[in-house]
């Protein structure tokens, strides 16, 4: 069973002057355990709409959405989900610790466990020193980190994060990426949206590209990387000196044998590839 299961999801809104706007045009997507899924798309493509449908915040016009096999109409579907909203806001009159206590209670955790897990996640997100201060006084990055902390609190199976890296400084981004990698190691399912290709390249197993409310492509990141190889950079040394050249994939073996014949030593072979960003741009523009 795939823990995130979206089938034929459509969503249309009534926009200005009573015009129907089709925000999602039939999305099919499944994500399983131990998988980190990057949801990539330009602004306004439907990333947030999809995530809000997953969280039951908006009602699909058509299609079914299930988390852990439970339809998202049912609040129980969110019992094992850690959700980080886009640009999150938390009751600012509470302190981080009080907020986590509230979240823990909502998930039905026993106080002792809330205390332990709370300390763990606050320390992990570097908020332990600030835990008793009201959220009102937090910086944007701190609020974002608290968002991650409250998603981690009850140790759920599924993590749904809307732009988890936004508003963070480089240190924070690195920390969140590290956490996502750890979660994969623990066999969790992480689904996050972003418009930054480098983040996907760094942590994702699979990536989905959404453009204008339709999924253009869902693919394994390592396969994209493999398919994206356009040639190789080759460095060789001979008594005459060092030399670098680029060859296409087809000519690599020919070149290698020629160099061997010439008595040169190959010191480096590096694939030259289209990066994910280029790949992404091609897809977006191609549509």
């Amino acid at each position: 069973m795939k823990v995130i299961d979206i089938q034929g999801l459509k969503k249309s809104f009534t926009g200005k002057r009573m015009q129907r706007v089709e925000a999602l045009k039939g999305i099919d997507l499944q994500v399983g355990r131990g998988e980190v899924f990057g949801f990539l798309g330009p602004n306004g493509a439907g990333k947030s709409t999809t995530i809000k449908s997953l969280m039951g915040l908006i009602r699909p016009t058509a299609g079914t959405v299930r988390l852990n096999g439970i339809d998202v109409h049912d609040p129980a579907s969110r019992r094992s989900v850690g959700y980080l909203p886009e640009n999150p806001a938390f009751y600012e009159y509470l302190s981080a610790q009080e907020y986590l206590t509230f979240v823990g209670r909502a998930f039905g955790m026993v106080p002792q466990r809330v205390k332990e897990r709370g300390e763990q996640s606050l320390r992990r997100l570097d908020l332990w020193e600030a835990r008793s201060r009201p959220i009102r006084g937090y910086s944007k990055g701190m609020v974002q980190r608290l968002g991650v902390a409250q998603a981690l609190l009850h140790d759920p199976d599924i993590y749904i994060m809307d732009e988890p890296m936004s508003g963070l400084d480089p240190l924070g981004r690195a920390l969140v990426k590290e956490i996502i990698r750890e979660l994969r190691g623990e066999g969790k399912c992480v689904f996050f949206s972003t418009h930054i290709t480098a983040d996907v390249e760094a942590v994702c197993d699979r990536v989905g590209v959404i453009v204008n409310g339709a999924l253009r492509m869902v693919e394994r990141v390592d396969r994209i990387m493999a398919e994206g190889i356009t040639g190789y950079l080759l460095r060789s040394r001979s008594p005459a000196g060092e030399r670098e050249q680029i060859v296409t994939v087809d000519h690599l073996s020919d070149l290698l044998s020629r160099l061997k014949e010439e008595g040169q030593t190959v010191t480096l072979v590096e694939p030259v590839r289209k990066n994910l960003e280029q790949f992404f741009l091609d897809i977006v523009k191609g549509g």
Partner: protein
Amino acid sequence: MTSILLITLKGIFRDRVFQGIMVMALLFLFIPTIGSLSMRQVTELSITLSLSLISFILLLLAVFLGGTSLWKDIEKRYTFSVLGLPLSRTSYILGRFMGNALFLCLTALFLGVITLLVILWAKGLYPPSRPVRWDNMMIAVLFDTLKYLLLVSVAFFFSSVSTSFFLPIFGTISVYLVGNASQEVYDYLHSGSQAVKVLPGMVVKAASLLYYLIPNLAAFDYKLQAVYGLDIAGRGMALTVLYWVIYTTIMLALTAVIYERREMK
């Protein structure tokens, strides 16, 4: 639900609403002085002023807390983080309502105790011509509290259909004014007076319909009975409590139904 209730209560206290009430409660200290301006009914005037002050403070709380409670969560984007938790929207609404209701009850209790002290004081200064009916005073405060709880549920209902705070706040104030007058308008329309007969039948019918739709808040007003120590009919009280339970439940149910279907964009 209790988790929402607790943070609602915490939020109200953290927003220093209670301190505001304490400041307003200082007005109670002036009541015996103002009461002494009366010629023949110092204690009566003191009771009138105290009960009206309680009623006024509770009105402010009902309108401004009740009217902004749901709106603020949407406006400040708290709904995304809260409704992303495994809580049903109904329990969120009920938790919010209970939090506001509990605060209103605590305030009424606090102000009620202050009133008792103030009346004791005024009574000591100027002995009243009629004995003070403490039971009536408590009934008046209790029914005032019920009335404003009902008004909070009305404010919640308006919040569920509106995206701004205008409808909840001004709608609730209008319901408060109309709800206090509806009984008199109804009585007048059915008094068979000559002035009524010239009105088109549609107007009378529409007014009668409104009378049954709009909460009858005048029924909760036991201030005169408390001030002048008049007898209160038990049947009337029982019916009013029943009416309150049903009306408030309907309002909350409608709010929950509408809120369940609402899109959190």
